[in-house]
């Protein structure tokens, strides 16, 4: 799903003031919202569909009234960003708590030691910026090393300063001298062992099926609440599956994610990887790294075999899906907005998106035990191309070896039997 065409909604987080359409000036400092990061009153709120602006007079959204900020108080409160400042957007990516990331949700506002050893509010109480350090507002630590489209000037290119990792503080040999775990750090990311599962307190969305969206009850949109008190169906968005304590997927990862663009051809017969994790066993910069695999079904242009831009949100326009519940109109409008041709037909294709998992670091006693991976059906069972003790065997050697053992057993049993018989005689 795309930001383009839906700016006023999405840009309540993605980012700044007044990004309501394609004319937004990314270079203007006047468009930067200082307060969303620096307000410490907790009263500064952007209106969900206000293109990043707070309201100037009280306004309702989904039963909640948004009041205009008390600008004097807000301005006087400014300070270094807290977990709440960052979390306001980053915990709610995708339109709700824990929708996108499995390792970032509102449980990290005041986490305990079990949830995150560093952010433990009773312990070290790290804020986000303790690791995501900044230099002149350039924030360290993002994973998306390369911009999505190499030929374009990326929004985030300016952010690409040195990346912080666990190693930055803990060194490459963080365990006791002689501990075998130190021999793993060249190939296994710290996160792989030290984040045994993600979404440990609050559920995260694992499956989002847009193809079922648009159903109505008595002619009206409706929602179904399932386990965890979360929507499992919403007319606007389709079916959801939520999960807690999710075991990550593991891939070789060198810090780069490659993205499927709207102009890329897709193969609708199998799940489309909207982003691909780049890395390999032979790349010295790659580590085995945990990921949340966010799956779902999304509309695509079945005439051109490309993903489709969807016009979801618009306060007035009929072409927006959340007004008309007509995919054809929404796709046509969305594609027109981004300047791509629409083949006129659409279908739904299964998609996968990979989110790196790096937060919610568990206390060391909760780290994975070795046999989570060093076993035949362990967590790394599908990661091919290298020998791993406990997982891999030498089939021929084992066959010959056990035949040898069996032959010697049979031989001594036979010998002993003959001995016994002849002794009696």
């Amino acid at each position, binding site marked *: 799903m795309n930001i383009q065409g839906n700016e006023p909604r999405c840009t309540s987080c993605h980012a700044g003031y007044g990004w309501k359409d394609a004319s937004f000036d990314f270079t203007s400092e006047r468009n930067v919202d200082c307060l969303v990061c620096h307000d410490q009153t907790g009263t500064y709120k952007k209106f969900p569909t206000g293109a990043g602006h707070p309201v100037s007079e009280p306004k309702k959204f989904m039963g909640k009234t948004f009041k205009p900020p008390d600008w004097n108080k807000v301005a006087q409160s400014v300070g270094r960003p807290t977990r709440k400042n960052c979390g306001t957007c980053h915990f709610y990516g995708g339109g709700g708590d824990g929708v996108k990331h499995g390792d970032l949700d509102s449980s990290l506002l005041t986490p305990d030691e079990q949830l995150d050893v560093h952010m433990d509010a009773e312990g070290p109480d790290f804020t986000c910026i303790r690791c995501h350090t900044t230099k002149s507002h350039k924030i360290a630590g993002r994973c998306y090393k390369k911009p999505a489209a190499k030929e374009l000037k990326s929004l985030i290119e300016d952010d690409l300063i040195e990346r912080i990792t666990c190693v930055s503080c803990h060194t490459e040999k963080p365990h006791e001298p002689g501990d075998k775990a130190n*021999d793993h750090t060249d190939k296994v990311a710290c996160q792989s062992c030290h984040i045994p599962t993600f979404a440990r307190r609050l559920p995260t969305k694992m499956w989002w099926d847009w193809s079922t969206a648009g159903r109505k009850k008595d002619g009206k949109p409706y929602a179904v609440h399932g386990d965890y008190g979360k929507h499992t169906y919403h007319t606007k968005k389709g079916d959801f599956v939520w999960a807690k304590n999710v075991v990550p997927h593991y891939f070789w990862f060198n810090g780069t994610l490659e993205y499927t663009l709207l102009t890329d051809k897709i193969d609708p017969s199998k799940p489309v990887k909207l982003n691909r994790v780049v890395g390999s066993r032979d790349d010295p910069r790659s580590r085995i790294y945990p990921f949340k695999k966010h799956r779902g079904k999304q509309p695509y242009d079945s005439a051109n075999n490309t993903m489709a831009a969807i016009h979801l949100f618009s306060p007035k326009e009929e072409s927006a899906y959340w007004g008309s519940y007509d995919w054809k109109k929404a796709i046509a409008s969305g594609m027109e907005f981004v300047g791509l041709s629409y083949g006129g037909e659409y279908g739904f294709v299964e998609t996968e998106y990979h989110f790196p998992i790096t937060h919610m670091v568990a206390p060391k006693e909760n780290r994975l*035990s070795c046999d989570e991976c*060093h*076993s035949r059906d362990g967590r790394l069972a599908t990661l091919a191309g290298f*020998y791993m*003790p406990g997982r*891999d*065997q*030498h089939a021929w050697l084992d066959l010959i070896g056990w035949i040898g053992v069996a032959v010697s057993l049979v031989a*001594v049993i036979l010998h002993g039997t003959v001995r016994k018989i002849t002794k009696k005689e």
Partner: protein
Amino acid sequence: MPAKNIIYLYPRFERFWHWAQTLLILVLLITGFEIHGTYSLLGFETAFTVHNFAAWAWLILYVFIVFWMVTTGEWRHYIPTYRKLYDVSCYYAYGIFRGESHPVPKSARIKHNPLQRLTYLSIVSILVPYQMVTGFLYYYYNSWPEMGLDWQLGTITFLHTAGAFAFLIFLVVHLYMITTGPTMLAHTRAMFTGWEEVEDVAACEWEDKSPKREAPATPTS
């Protein structure tokens, strides 16, 4: 029947290292095959820790065993010989079934028959060092670049596992062979007490070339 003697054949340290090695081999085999992924018993992590502890323990024990062999002259019992090897082989192949007596009976001067000499010498000088070297290379896998080794991990695990099978096969055969004494448990008992029941026999012909050494005191039976 020749006269029976009971002699003190296995001194305390020899019995100790024998049983210590028994324990280490069993522990290393059990944990080793778990690390190999053959079964799940203690859990990989415990198996790994125990395996490494046992490996270091064996290295230390091995140093003591070699030192003991050299300083006490016990190494002479492991001098390989082909004499009577054929006879001994024939004995175990069919003589034993006919009630023939052993062509090289145990005596104070001859702890091991030629077949044992070859087997034990191979184990102590080839198999054990081989398994130690492959084991330590396996453990120090991350340091291979500094050692100038350009191998795959799978290569060393192959070699080390092959060694483990050799030990297991030795164990099977050894466990059987020790039942071939005068009674099923005679040799085992001797390895606990040190006292072995032997036939009073004349010196074996190939003993003549062996250097003379003082026989331990032989109590009268």
